[in-house]
């Protein structure tokens, strides 16, 4: 490549549009929202800001943050995974049932949960990427299937906490410098996922495929494989999250983590992950989980009815989706618009 530089022709004036601006400030928006609701709750309730309560909020947010990260990875590819709760339940039940039969089982339990999650996620990914089933339909189907298999396997039984290995239950209650072990583990997992998405070529390609699938073909990427990998990663994270959740609540029933598809989606969308693909971060999704946990906690402290939790969750999704539409509009304008002469301009 020749190195001779030519004189700058015309200075390119950076012309940012609102879409770009909104994309950039999204995570700070979630942080601001978090601070605002935190401020409101702490003014209304003296208990909100106590270290003990903050620990409770963090513990409640932690596992959801991991699942929201899993959901985010899939959303970034322009797909959705509504089977996250079923994957958690499936891997948690099988792993804990195994643990109940083999009292001296150790770290292999973690590997087992991860392997089950990875397998279930790969099935999802295969259906969506190669089976060409729309992601909503495919994962709705596997949501039922995975949950159904759990029922079949459990045969009406549940795994109670006294049958689980001691170390498993105790490990999540440990505290490191006052911070619950559970929170530490989940923060680490989210950070690893964040580094993967932000700093590894494969992570960047996940964004690229979601941002513009057609262009990704022109760039020589293999979008199908990348989508499969995103689902596999989502399954892996959910398998792990299922085990953590089982350890946290102690009693493993067949309905463990049902309904998490909704809260993980809410957390991811509130955290600035676009359902239109291509944008958002797992850190944002984790912050979204923290927002939901704060709202839950604050409303309990203030003694407000369940309605308000639903209301805030619903309206923040609508607000986040509106921002999405706004950003999408800006993007379309800049990438496809103005193909004709700007005659009226």
């Amino acid at each position: 490549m020749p190195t001779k530089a030519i004189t700058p022709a015309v200075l390119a004036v950076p012309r940012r549009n609102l879409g770009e601006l909104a994309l950039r400030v999204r995570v700070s928006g979630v942080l601001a929202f978090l601070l605002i609701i935190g401020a409101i709750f702490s003014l209304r309730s003296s208990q909100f800001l106590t270290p003990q309560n903050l620990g409770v909020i963090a513990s409640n947010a932690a596992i959801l943050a991991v699942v929201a990260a899993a959901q985010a990875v899939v959303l970034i590819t322009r797909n959705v995974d509504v089977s996250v709760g079923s994957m958690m339940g499936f891997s948690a039940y099988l792993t804990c049932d195994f643990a109940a039969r083999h009292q001296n089982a150790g770290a292999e339990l973690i590997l087992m949960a991860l392997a089950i999650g990875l397998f279930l996620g790969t099935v999802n990914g295969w259906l969506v990427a190669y089976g060409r089933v729309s992601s909503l339909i495919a994962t709705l189907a596997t949501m039922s299937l995975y949950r159904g298999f759990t029922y079949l396997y459990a045969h009406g039984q549940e795994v109670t906490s006294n049958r689980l290995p001691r170390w498993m239950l105790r490990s999540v209650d440990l505290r490191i410098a006052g911070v619950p072990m559970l929170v530490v583990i989940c923060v680490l997992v989210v950070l690893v996922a964040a580094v993967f998405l932000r700093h590894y070529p494969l992570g960047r390609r996940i964004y690229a495929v979601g941002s513009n699938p057609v262009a990704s073909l022109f760039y020589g990427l293999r979008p199908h494989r990348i989508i499969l990998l995103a689902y596999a990663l989502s399954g892996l994270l959910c398998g792990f999250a299922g085990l953590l959740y089982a350890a946290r609540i102690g009693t493993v029933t067949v309905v463990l983590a049902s309904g998490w598809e909704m809260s993980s989606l809410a957390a991811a969308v509130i955290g600035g992950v676009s359902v239109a693909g291509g944008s958002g971060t797992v850190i944002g999704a984790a912050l979204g989980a923290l927002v939901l946990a704060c709202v839950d906690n604050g409303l309990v402290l203030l003694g407000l009815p369940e309605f308000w939790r639903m209301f805030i969750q619903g309206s923040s999704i609508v607000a986040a989706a509106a921002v999405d539409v706004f950003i999408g509009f800006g993007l379309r304008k800049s990438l496809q618009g103005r193909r004709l002469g700007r005659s009226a301009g």
Partner: protein
Amino acid sequence: MVDRVEPTPALRIVGVSKSYGASRALSEVTFDIRRGAVHALVGENGAGKSTLVKIITGIVPADAGQVFLGSQAVHFATPMEARAGGIAAVYQDPKLFAHLDVAENIFLGNYPTSRLGTVDRRRMYTQASAALGQLGLELDPHSLVAGLSVAELQFVEIARALSAELQLLILDEPTSALTPAESERLFRIVRTLRDRGKSILLITHRLEEVESMADDLTVLRDGRHVATRPAREVDRAALVQMMVGRPVETLFGRSQSTTAGNEVLRVEDLGVEGTFAGITFSLRAREIVGMAGLVGAGRTEIAQTVFGITPPTRGRVFLNGQPVVPRSPRQMLKLGVAYLPEDRDGQGLIMADSIVNNVTLPIVGRLARMGVLNGSGERRVATQAAATYDVKAISVEQLVMSLSGGNRQKVAFAKWLATTPVALLLDEPTHGIDIGSKAQVHRIIRQLADQGLAVLLISSDLPEVLAMSDRILVIAEGRLVAEIPREEATQEKVMMAATQGAGTSRACRPKP
């Protein structure tokens, strides 16, 4: 044997042919692109330029013939392989990732990585700045692609192309969305690349760009190679002659001019911000008015605005002398304006439904008795319509998607005519249908006009426009640039008007 040593051309195209089904897109095209030259590829809409580019860059395979890069025969299977081989194309709608920044868009397929396998961002941004700097661009590699102008998007694509060992850069109508200043910037970059020994294949509709930029030019017409010449040997008139020079097809048989009736539709100074402006014309009963222009000139947008799909931001529309503000297709249909979209299968018909349901869809309200549809009544209307327009089908219950293109178009006609309109807007009504059906469609259009309808015929098929129209409106870059009565209309005249728009109408416009 040769007394003059010719260097190997950068690219040789030898006997390349390509058919899509029955239609032949390219037949035995042969020409060379010299090293270090800007080579213009010109031709009318549908002449085969895009197909040729797709073959060179490996998007579609050729049926026959070969492409040589240097002295090597190449068969690229994907655009990536072509890029690795040194051929890159920049399209008028750049294929980039809006959510990612400029540097990532340049390096996505091929990131610089650190020892840990992570993306080496610092190196990436430095290299991106260097690549952009070489092109004389002061573009921040950190800015998101979402915030760039169309020109800047193309510059990013070019920067990306240069990050590989580039031999040939293909620019597919690069200036169609650029302002004059942006175009000038682009061409400065093109000249720099040429002076460094790269070859550039420039596809353009703007003849003044051919004059100012090209060293050589190649003309394609109807998928055939017409000529490859040094650009300075060809003047504009000769070029237009080569582009349209086929004998006017007698297939349509110039239809008799009937005396036009009263004015049915008149638009005055119609405009949609950013799309077209200052459009004034009228349609009279029993008249076919052709609307010619290049693809993307704004013809479809004008028709859709009159039909109420995109409300106008300025100007007025009169129907039978009464002012109307087009707000929705529902309203315009009620007032008697019907529109046959260009994307017939996507916008004009419900493919997975029967002929009868398609035909009666716009008038189900009228056919229903007390809100209940009467199946035999529906079938009667549809059967009659199918007979009138000679739709070839086993029964009116047959699904539209099982019909041929020509028969689908007839169903689309039947559907809108069931609404008994007074003005009919046809957008490329014969696009993609076979010759036999084409003649039938022409006959239908003529009949309808004779029955008293006012018809606006948008078509990129010049012989068709010339043969069918009583008057021809020429649109270029969102403006009405000429109105030619049928006696004076020739292909050259229409082409000249359609391709001249750029320089004249833009120069006086203020920069954005």
